[in-house]
């Protein structure tokens, strides 16, 4: 798993460039700005957390105020990616023990704040299906330009389906060569049944054909050269 903030550490790498392109595409994916965005996938290990964090970095680089919320209450990752403690977090807010301000943490990346998962509860789905959760997202969206929510896989548990009804847009991460077509089809059915608004898919770990790859490098090295000239 790429638990790695490539956009932050190597902003000129092709991967970082890919996240910036994603950021741009996202801006055009919907006529009005989408402020609460759920990132999920059909099965585990498809790169949701990495994409959430790197996309957050890319958005922050564009001058936006970004909040990352780790709603994967079964296998939280964001606190590890941003290297912050996870004593308190989303679960504390949802059970009413804390306010958002109490658990909000600044990350090493400027412009990116994080609400980590908090202690892992026995009943994440019920917790997320609460009125408190539903009202939480608009409140957070009021404070940030973009709220990115990391979530568990769609097919295994109900969490993401529940969350998908509470947010403005859903992004589905698909890992090329790994995501099974039948699970992806099932995910689509689940999301359609829930009435979620799927903005689009993010294709992860694309292996480029050699010729495309050369073109890719050429193209980006051109861009990088131009970028360095501008600097």
């Amino acid at each position: 798993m790429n638990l790695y903030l490539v956009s932050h550490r190597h902003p000129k790498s092709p991967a970082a460039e890919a996240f910036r392109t994603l950021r741009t595409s996202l801006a055009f994916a919907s006529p009005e700005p989408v402020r609460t965005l759920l990132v999920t996938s059909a099965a585990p290990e498809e790169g949701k957390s990495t994409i959430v964090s790197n996309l957050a970095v890319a958005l922050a680089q564009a001058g936006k105020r970004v909040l990352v919320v780790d709603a994967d209450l079964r296998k939280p990752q964001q606190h590890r990616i941003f290297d912050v403690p996870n004593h308190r977090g989303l679960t504390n807010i949802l059970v009413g023990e804390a306010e958002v301000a109490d658990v909000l943490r600044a990350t090493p990346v400027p412009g990116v704040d994080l609400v980590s998962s908090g202690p892992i509860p026995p009943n994440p789905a019920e917790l997320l299906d609460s009125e408190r959760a539903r009202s939480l997202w608009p409140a957070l969206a009021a404070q940030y330009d973009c709220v990115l929510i990391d979530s568990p896989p769609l097919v295994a548990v109900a969490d993401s389906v529940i969350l998908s009804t509470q947010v403005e847009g859903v992004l589905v991460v698909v890992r090329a060569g790994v995501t099974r077509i039948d699970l992806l089809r099932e995910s689509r059915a689940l999301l359609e049944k829930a009435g979620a608004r799927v903005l689009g898919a993010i294709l992860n770990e694309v292996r480029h054909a050699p010729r495309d790859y050369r073109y890719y490098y050429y193209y980006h090295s051109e861009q990088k050269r131009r970028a360095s000239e501008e600097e």
Partner: protein
Amino acid sequence: MGIPRNEVIDQEADLREGEIDLRQLLRVLRKWAWVIALITVVAVISAAVLSYFVLDPVYEAQVTLMVTQALPTTQPGGQPLQGQGLDQLMSVLARLPQMTLNTYVGQLTSESLMQRVLDALDLDRQGYTARSLAGLVQAKNIKDTNLIQVTVSHTDPHLAAEIANAVSRQFVEFVSEQNREQMAKSVEFLEKQSAEVEGELKAARQKLHDFQVQARGVAVVQQEFDSKSADLARMQSEAVQLGVAIDQLQAGVRGLQETLASTPRTVMVEEDGKKIERLNDVYISLSQMLEQKQVELAEKQARLGSTRRFIAQLEADLADLQAELVDKQAQESELRARVDQLNQTYQTLLQKKTEVQIARSINLGETSILVVSPAYIPSRAARPNRQLNMAVSGVLGVMVGVMLAFLLEYLDNTVKGAEDVQRVLGAPVIGNVPLFTGADRGR
């Protein structure tokens, strides 16, 4: 780096139209190139190991035989029996066996021949059997020629040549022996037949002879017939002569009667001046003559009557004789025909017997099969053909690899790219994240 939506739709359209995209195929091959390469390399290496270290080299020794008296066609037997009857049958029974090239080829790997080779080379002590030896020998007719190529494969080149030569040598003998056996059978048959026919012929001759020498044979009857015919002819001519004589006599009698009528019975004769009537001398002599003639006529007529009776008798006899003669002649010619027929059969059989005996004395094996080229000890192994084996397994490896690649690709039910996502999820791909490389990681 989002793929523009129209491109996604275009690709989907291509898929819907069922077009096989060559690039798709190449992509699959490239993806599984390592599988293809691995399988190919393994195949070639195992072929090489087998060819160089595992399989014993096999040497091939070849003998070329030429068949000089084979039928041009491969049709077995010969023509069906027709016309010429007996003669034809005889030649079918007694001629040299008609051998086609395929007959020879078939005999070359027969177990009885192999057994002879075994005995000749003392190979059974080395654990060979006729069957296992036949497995080493291959015989084939070289197309459009009268040549038969015998190939012996063996791991020992010397033995291969030795066996090849033994096979050709034994084959020549084998064919000769077979031929002699066949001829002996023919002779035996012909002898039996000719003895039988000879017996019949003797019996028929005896019958004919008996018929000819019986009491009233054809000759006797014929002779009688002939003599009676002669008698008849004589009688008939006599009857004719008698008729003529009778006619003359009757004419004479009539003349005399007329003359007599006009002749006075008495004449006046002046005897001594006086006329006396006296009997006419002429008249007397005439009537005497008439009497005489009438007597003669009566006699002739009597003779004619008896002659005619005799002729009638003869004619009746002759008719009987003729019937008898025809009957006997028919019998005789029948017997004679039977004798002739048997005689002819007997002569034919004798002639064939002689022919077969001559044929038997010919050594068919040596006259009909020539060793054109004896076997030499092969210097190079014919098998395994290392290059060929490796090339074949290389090609097979590539084929199996490619098939496996497509199978794996077919069995792979994971999402491959943007078009799959668009199709399955019903949402566009708005971003591509490449696989982070080591350089990206930089840890």
